């Protein structure tokens, strides 16, 4: 509001309802009072000494009080988990954690016959499921409502993706420690796939993007691992390639950051 506060005389004239106060000054005082709590305190002090005004205020207050008593706004400061996740994402995250646990069990106890640890095979692709739950029309009942709000778009998608990673990366790191899979070996593909899903999601929709990448992962990594017992793409020599995918994904994401406010439809 304006930095210039009305003078005491002006506030007094306003409080008394002086008829000789010109309309433009009256409006200016009124507009200022709406936004300035300090001047409202001065107004209240001024009004306290005027029986007419206090009587009027009492009448108004008595009339309003029953309605105000019935109306109870929620207490402020209720924790807002929904700013970071939706109720839809929780079961998906729980499932992913469970799948990771199963992968660890397989690796440790069931005498996994293949040459590649199931943790390494699954950990990079699992965040895709979380990302899908974060922003897919078919999975989120309130998707249409959310998509029409100002917060919809890349920042909200990134926020929810961060939640997915914040939950899953520690779990996968623990799984890696338990099974002896090197950190870089799963973390880099994991981040690369997530970035690629978000980048591709801007073009064909996040749900479809995660499905496409999931299929690609199955064909290029899971299938050879199961049939041949090796995963050429996950060898240490492949790491620069994954780093490249990660950089490319982030680049595309930044370049097309405005494409996320409307749903990608048919051209």
């Amino acid at each position, binding site marked *: 509001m304006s930095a210039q506060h009305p003078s005491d005389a002006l506030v007094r004239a306003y409080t008394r309802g002086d008829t000789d106060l010109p309309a433009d000054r009256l409006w200016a005082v009124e507009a200022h009072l709406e936004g300035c709590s300090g001047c409202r305190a001065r107004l209240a002090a001024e009004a306290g000494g005027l029986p007419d005004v206090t009587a009027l205020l009492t009448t108004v207050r008595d009339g309003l009080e029953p309605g105000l008593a019935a*109306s109870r706004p929620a207490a402020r400061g209720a924790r807002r988990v929904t700013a970071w996740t939706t109720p839809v994402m929780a079961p998906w995250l729980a499932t992913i954690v469970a799948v990771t646990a199963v992968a660890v069990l397989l690796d440790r106890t069931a005498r996994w016959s293949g040459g590649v640890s199931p943790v390494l095979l699954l950990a990079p692709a699992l965040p895709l499921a979380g990302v899908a739950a974060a922003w897919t029309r078919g999975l989120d009942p309130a998707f249409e409502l959310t998509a029409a709000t*100002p917060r919809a778009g890349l920042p909200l998608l990134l926020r929810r993706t961060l939640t997915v990673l914040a939950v899953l990366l520690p779990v996968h790191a623990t799984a890696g420690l338990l099974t002896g899979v090197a950190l870089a070996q799963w973390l880099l593909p994991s981040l690369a796939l997530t970035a690629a899903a978000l980048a591709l999601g801007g073009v064909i929709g996040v749900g479809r993007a995660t499905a496409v990448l999931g299929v690609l992962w199955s064909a290029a990594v899971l299938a050879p691992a199961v049939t041949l017992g090796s995963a050429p793409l996950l060898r240490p020599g492949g790491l620069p390639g994954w780093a490249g995918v990660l950089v490319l994904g982030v680049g595309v994401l930044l370049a097309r950051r405005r494409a996320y406010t409307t749903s990608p439809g*048919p051209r």
Partner: protein
Amino acid sequence: MTATSGVADTAPRTYAHEIHAHDLTVRVSRDRLAVDGLTLSLGVGTHGLLGPNGAGKTTLIRTLATVLRPTGGDLELFGHSVRDSGRHRELRRRIGYLPQEFGYYKRFTVREFVGYLAWLKEMPDRDIPGAVQRAVERVGLAERADDRMKSLSGGMVRRVGIAQAIVNDPAVLLLDEPTVGLDPAQRLQFRSLLKELGRESCVVVSTHLVEDVAAACTDVVLFDRGRLLFQGTPDDLAAAGTSDQPGDSPLERGYSALLSDSAQGKGSW
């Protein structure tokens, strides 16, 4: 709860109509245009968007809500083209939208859900509890505000949908079939709420019920197969009908007359 008067209220308006579509087309599949060359201006008031099922009403509303991108032509909201996606954020703060299929989170209470939408609409944190309370009271759900959504009846869920749409005091309010699931008494209350909202904002209500339009709207937009057939007052619509048209009220007869003109020899369904 006071609505804070701010710069947005006092700034001079730079547009003639809240909504202005020029030759707008929206493609929904490879071979179907749901909106086909629509030119339309809507200002402050309650506008009834009337048309048979499949006329393209939902697609039009979703385009107005900036969820769908126009394929051709242009759409301006508050004088700004929606093609500039950098402005979407700013435009959407001033829009309220109730989709036809209103999805919600069952485990949320009414207050949590409306508050969540208020947060998504980027309302200032300190304004949210008051705004939520006011919106919930306006749709008559104050008593149920702390109940979970899954415990509500269909009509109540619909009213929560209306509450979330009006929580940010939108200048453009888009309601897609809002009266579905409301009982007759609720429908009457809803109509008076519509009239009240239409005094200060541009309200677009899509419906296929002629009587909703008659009771609550200041303006009728008749829409079929993606094209504008008629825009005018409910009285104008009634005047378009003759007594030999099918229908139980003057409005229904006007509706049938205008629709049969456009159908021209197509099957009766």
